[in-house]
């Protein structure tokens, strides 16, 4: 018989990627222009992790999902109106910055403290989920540090699939070069998973699920403690928007080997 999991997903909000994202220098360092006014969404990588968590929890009776989210309370509330309709979870809200310009070490410290403080959490059954990447910043280190702070040594990054086997061990597919996966087996929780995209589609909004979730989300938002994210010693030398570059050349009947050679040469140049 399968044992229940306690799955904690760390994920915050990012500006809707369709918006005009223009870096500016504010009083507290780099920021995005009008960031607070832009519509926000749950970071897509974290969202994949949340959907995978809910899917896993649904298959293992008694499992529970928490979403630990650090961001400005008012923006978190807006995003939760959509996210809460997707899957069942309990929110742990932390009122603080969600900017891509926050230090990953300091952010991880705040998140780890919040996870450790979840009252009913069974850390022996803990699966720590999060995004391998982030739409606001690809530091790639936050989830690793959170796990380390929580004493979780079994860590997997770029995860596309997690299968719980009959004996309770977990088979994990991690992305590696060339579109292939590294297959690992983890005997039991606790373990940490930085999700890539997974395989699940985004669930449709279901207001019935939303109404149930919001009964705990609204109090969680009201309880959200102000969480300062330290920025000691952090200095940004430059901030740039990724540049679009398009160089088109029309060539007919080029052999595949020649195309490959050109691509390799181009990559080496970069």
């Amino acid at each position: 018989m399968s044992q229940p999991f306690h799955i904690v997903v760390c994920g915050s909000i990012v500006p809707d990627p369709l918006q005009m994202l223009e870096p500016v220098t504010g009083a507290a360092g780099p920021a995005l222009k009008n960031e607070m006014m832009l519509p926000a969404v749950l970071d897509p990588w974290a969202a994949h992790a949340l959907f995978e968590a809910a899917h896993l929890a649904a298959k293992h009776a008694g499992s529970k999902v928490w979403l630990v989210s650090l961001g400005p309370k008012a923006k978190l509330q807006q995003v939760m109106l959509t996210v809460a309709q997707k899957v069942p979870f309990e929110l742990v809200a932390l009122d603080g910055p969600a900017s891509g310009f926050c230090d990953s070490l300091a952010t991880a410290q705040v998140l780890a403290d919040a996870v450790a403080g979840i009252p009913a959490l069974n850390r022996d059954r803990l699966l720590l989920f999060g995004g391998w990447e982030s739409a606001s910043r690809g530091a790639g280190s936050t989830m690793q540090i959170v796990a380390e702070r929580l004493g979780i040594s079994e860590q997997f990054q770029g995860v596309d699939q997690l299968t719980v086997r009959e004996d309770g061990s977990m088979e994990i597919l991690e992305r590696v070069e060339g579109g292939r996966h590294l297959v690992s087996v983890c005997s039991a929780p606790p373990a940490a998973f930085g999700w890539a995209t997974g395989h699940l589609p985004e669930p449709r909004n279901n207001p019935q699920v939303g109404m149930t979730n919001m009964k705990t989300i609204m109090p969680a938002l009201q309880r959200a403690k102000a969480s300062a994210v330290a920025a000691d010693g952090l200095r940004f030398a430059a901030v740039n928007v990724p540049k679009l570059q398009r160089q088109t050349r029309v060539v007919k009947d080029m052999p595949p080997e020649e195309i490959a050679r050109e691509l390799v040469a181009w990559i080496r140049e970069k």
Partner: protein
Amino acid sequence: MPVAASEKQKDDLQALPGDEVRQVMWRFAGRYDLQMLVQSAREVARGPVARLVAQGARADHGWTPAKNELLKAYDESGITGVFMDPEQGGFIEGPKNLALALVAFELAWVDAGAATGSLAGCLALAPIHERGTAEQQQTYLSRCAPAQPGEARLPWRGAFCLTEPIPYVGVDTGQLGGKVRIVDWPEGGEPVLQVEKRGRFITNMGFANFVTAAVESDDPRIKGTLMVILEEGDPGTFDRGTPTRKLVHQLSSTCDPVFNLRVPASRIIGGYDVRDGVIVPHYNHSEVIEAVFRRTRVTVGIMTSAKLLSAVEPVIRYQRSRFRGGAATGPGSPRYDLGLQMKEDVVHRLVDVWATGEASASLGFEAARLFDRLDPMERLRDRVLAERGVGGGMAALRARKQINKDALAFLCGERPELADDVVVQTALLDSIANVLCPACKLWNTGVGSRMMREAVSLMGGYGITEDCPGFLGYKWMDSQLEATYEGPEAVQRRQLGVTMTDDLFLMQFRGWIRELRRVANDHPGTGACALATAMQMWMWTLEHLRESKDADGAALYHSSRQGVTFALADALCWLLASRAQIQDVLELARMGPENPALADGLPGLVSFLTDLCHVQSAHAAGEVGRICAELVFGYNRHPRWGEQDCAACYSATELEAWESLIPGIDGAARGLTDVVENDGSHQQKAGPCARYEGLEPFQRMRTRMDGCLTGSRLAKDRAADALTTVMIPEAADYPR
């Protein structure tokens, strides 16, 4: 990297109003159930609905499998269940008018046909919801609720069938052609009815499982008219008919059905009594549809508002990028960055579109909220009146007279204790609802449709292509249907012609004028002063017309004199919309600071929206001035160059004689009044100038109102300027 906004820039419009802004303005910031509904409906609208439109599904007026998939999306997203209470399978507690309005807004932002299709199911249920028996309500609302997880059931769909008389599309509710008679009445048992009905332009008919139909008795054993529920499994003919070849709203199913069915009398909506062997329905069809339409029409008005507001972003994007494909236009040049927005005209016209959209949305949501307040009060009032033993007929009329008298006394401050009297308070609210509902339907769709044409024109030739971002061309065409269905403009004007003269409404209207003066004092940039003066002018004109006769001695304010009543109804709508807009912006200014997410951009946003209020109030004042002046002066006959009309003219002979006594009078008189020369000739014009005896107050008001427009064009300039700098998303967010 540029430096973040300076203090000055913070007073500028930084981004388009987002959800947090609308939640405050339209008063659902404290309702997370509605906020979730908005997100849910938006996902359907900008996802499957938008994809269908982009794929060309509107080119087919039939109900295709792809369109049918939308029903599933409505069910899963909660759109279908929005009409039901939680115990019936819904998820929203309490009245649903604002909820339905928000769904309509979100769907119509992309395609109003989808909005119509989703709401038509609610329209079918509305007669049952408003007037059905408890059993009917439980049965049909539960059947129509989407299946819960683990339930293997398809929800029922309904259609509402009123069309009469055949063969035309539309309805004169007073002339029913559908018939009902008794075919079997077992001793002590339930009568069986034979119902014959044909419909035109019946929405949802392509897939409806049941129909709520209006019919008239064709049997002396049934009294009057009634509404009845027909099911597809009933014995007889349930023919869905041919799809209507409509040009618009193609994402809703519309057919011309034929029914000839046997149904038990228990399907009569609201139930019936048997008196002296005659079936007497508890409600005739007019009583049922009156309760239904006064609510559902608001959502139709909101659809056109959504379209206007949805046009802003694509038009700005088009204007700015208009010249970017040109070889001679490089980044950094004004032509590249601003495109068409270098020209004042295009941004001014977009300001007009946006201001109209804001005003119409404000009016629509105000009406929806008002019905949410009214719904529980009406039920309580009915209970109280029943306890007081007030029945129908003459007793009800007498009671109503007394209630109105009490309500007027309360408004005059004579009976403050009536503040807690639900009967009186309902009467007061009802008198406003009776005006706001037709006003919203009439103005939002009528003026909205004209402004939608303006939005399309701002996209140039692109506007009338299928590829136009925001589907603006489709939206323009669709708005013509919104102005027509659920009671065309003439019906709304007729209703307004009656309800706007209700003493309770007029007394409250006078209070609004005083309130607007206070607003103008505290927030001078809103245009509230111009609006208050225009409202005064409208009041004066109404009173004048109700007491005046035309040049032939015929009464001016009369139900058959639609040249007067309809025009005055139109004028009133402009005022109500502008007032609602100002109230919403004041609410944002008051409550916005409570939301930290709004802190950065709030001053700029409020300042911009205030300018839009000013622009709109000037438009409203202008319209009211024009209409009132036409009505006040237009029914007097212009004087002619004849003996009678020239009695007040000077003759040249007279002036020559007086010149010797009062030097200069000849010249002065010729500048001030009409003079007939010795040979009978006169100035080349229609006749002696008209005189205004008794109309001087109107003239003074008109002059004052013109002066009140001071600053409105400066506001328009500021708003137009803001449109050239406001940040918009990089790309449209639909189709997703």
